């Protein structure tokens, strides 16, 4: 007997609901995850930046360079000193705030130098091809081949310790870092038909770079720059730690760790607090970069 439908179907009054291809709950969770991945690091960074740059304007913090030796080695949460004081009696929270200012100043300055100089070299090299690209590419390769910290150490040692010298020294890492990336992004864009189309309609080369290449590599450059700021802050910390960067009595996260290291067993918080500040800052920068990469769909 050939029934038009299988009996099971006929016997069931209400057909079972089809499994939905889109799970609403999972979709909501995905959206929430996406939003959190962007806004959590943004929030943390806003908090840290606010603490470093706005707070000193609003409240009068104790000096970050000099303290009263009578109140030295105060534990955290003591009156007048939120995070306590160090051996010299200098307020630890103030040091953290001013050290953060230095870290961000150096991180941003090095990355901006990297974008301006490295980006220019990378875009010109990536667009030019031929011998110019070969020369510029090799220069960036050679700079990148040096271990960044060792190179920065040598330069910082030669220039002497100061904030601006740390910026110069770390730029030798920042320039090839952004440059290599800008070159790669430019090469990808250059092969796309709209660049050929622009060439075909007789557009001048610099105009193609400014109007067609730069706006299209900008998302990638911004993403990599956030990563660059993070790496720069770590390198800056390392330079300070080793005594080639910002030096006492000026505060920086790196030299705070270096000082704390001497009393590591007695007062581990002196190492822990600046380390955590460094970790949270760099992790947030990386997370923000990843979130933007996810949103903009860049590599």
């Amino acid at each position, binding site marked *: 007997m050939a029934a038009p439908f299988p009996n099971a179907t006929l016997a069931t009054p209400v057909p079972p609901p089809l499994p939905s291809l889109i799970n609403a709950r999972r979709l909501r969770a995905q959206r929430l995850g996406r939003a959190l991945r962007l806004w959590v690091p943004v929030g943390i960074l806003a908090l840290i930046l606010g603490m470093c740059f706005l707070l000193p304007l609003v409240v009068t913090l104790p000096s970050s360079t000099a303290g009263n030796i009578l109140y030295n080695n105060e534990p955290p949460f003591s009156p007048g000193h939120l995070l306590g004081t160090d051996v010299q009696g200098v307020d630890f929270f103030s040091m953290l705030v001013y050290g953060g200012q230095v870290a961000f100043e150096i991180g941003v300055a090095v990355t901006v130098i990297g974008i301006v100089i490295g980006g220019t070299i990378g875009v010109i090299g990536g667009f030019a*091809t*031929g011998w110019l690209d070969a020369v510029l590419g090799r220069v960036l390769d050679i700079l990148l081949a040096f271990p960044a910290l060792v190179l920065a150490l040598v330069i910082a040692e030669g220039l002497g310790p100061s904030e601006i010298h740390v910026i110069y020294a770390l730029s030798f890492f920042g320039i090839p870092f952004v440059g290599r990336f800008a070159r790669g992004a430019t090469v990808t864009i250059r092969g*796309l*038909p*709209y660049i*050929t*189309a*622009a*060439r*075909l*309609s*007789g*557009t*001048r*080369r610099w*105009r193609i770079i400014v*109007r*067609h290449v730069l*706006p*299209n590599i900008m998302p990638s450059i911004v993403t990599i720059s956030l990563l660059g700021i993070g790496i720069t802050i770590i390198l800056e910390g390392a330079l300070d730690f080793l005594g080639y960067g910002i030096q006492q009595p000026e505060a920086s996260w790196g030299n705070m760790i270096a000082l704390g290291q001497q009393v590591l067993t007695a007062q581990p918080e002196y190492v822990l607090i600046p380390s955590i500040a460094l970790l949270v800052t760099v992790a947030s920068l990386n997370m923000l970069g990843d979130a933007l990469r996810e949103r903009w769909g860049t590599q």
Partner: protein
Amino acid sequence: MTDALLQVDDLRVTFAVGGREVRAVDGVSFTVDPGRTLAIIGESGSGKTVCCRAILGLLPTGTAIGGSARLRGAELLGLSDAELRRYRGSDIAMVFQDPARSLNPTMRVGLQITEAIRTHRKVDRREAHTQAIELLRLVRMPAAERRFDEYPHQLSGGMRQRVMIAIALACRPKLLVADEATTALDVTTQAQIMELLLDLQTELDMALILISHDMGLAASYSDEVLVMYAGKIVEQAPATRLFGAEGAVRMRYTRALLDAIPHLERPAHAELPVVGGRPPDPTTRLPGCSFAPRCASAADDCLAKAPALLEHAPGHRWACWHPCENGVAS
């Protein structure tokens, strides 16, 4: 016969790939007359695109290009990018296959048109804006003023291709090369874009080179058809002669391509005739006819010696030792 707009003589393009020579275009000659349409037909890798890119100077540096391509008597081959800028856009323009990637995603489409206008003409922003809107109207873009301020992702594939055509036409070129310009579009849009190109061709009196692998397209829209195989022209004839009722196809490759087009009159579920085998490896050169290994009626002489492209009938050139009789494969 009028003076040729574009005259290509013995064009040869050789790429060096991994130390081996690849002859992408091997001695191609043709002319394009003002206001006429030439269709270049061939399968992937037959050299049709490379041929046109060589003429426009778009091949990567280090490619060996020989022969000559003259635009109204002026040699184009061997010119630098700066020298070519004089011709690009104003004399020759090109529309590509992929409208999705042919527009800058970060620029409003209107600005991309005004950029093309202002590259060649000294006009102010306002005038360029007016001209761009006119161009958008010319390419039958609905709501031209509104589209001017939109980004490419807001347009459909057909509309993007219209914008590309508007950019190509910005400076009223004498020759427009459409490289598979309608391949990425669906059939209805394809017909609209082709009609548009033909309308514009008569309106602006420009010549058109259609690069395609679509025989039907060539039959419906071109004056002259040029069939390429393995970097060479194998047959060239007026479209009416090739596709007309009398069907004067001679070269067996053209015949095989035509036979591969499905027809409604054929019985349902009948197997489609295909051109068996694959095109020859471009790094090796066959002594004989390059189509011989795939040709059903290849004889010993086909493998031994390559037939020359000769004009056997007025306006009809073909390269074959054993051409089809009356357009029918024997």
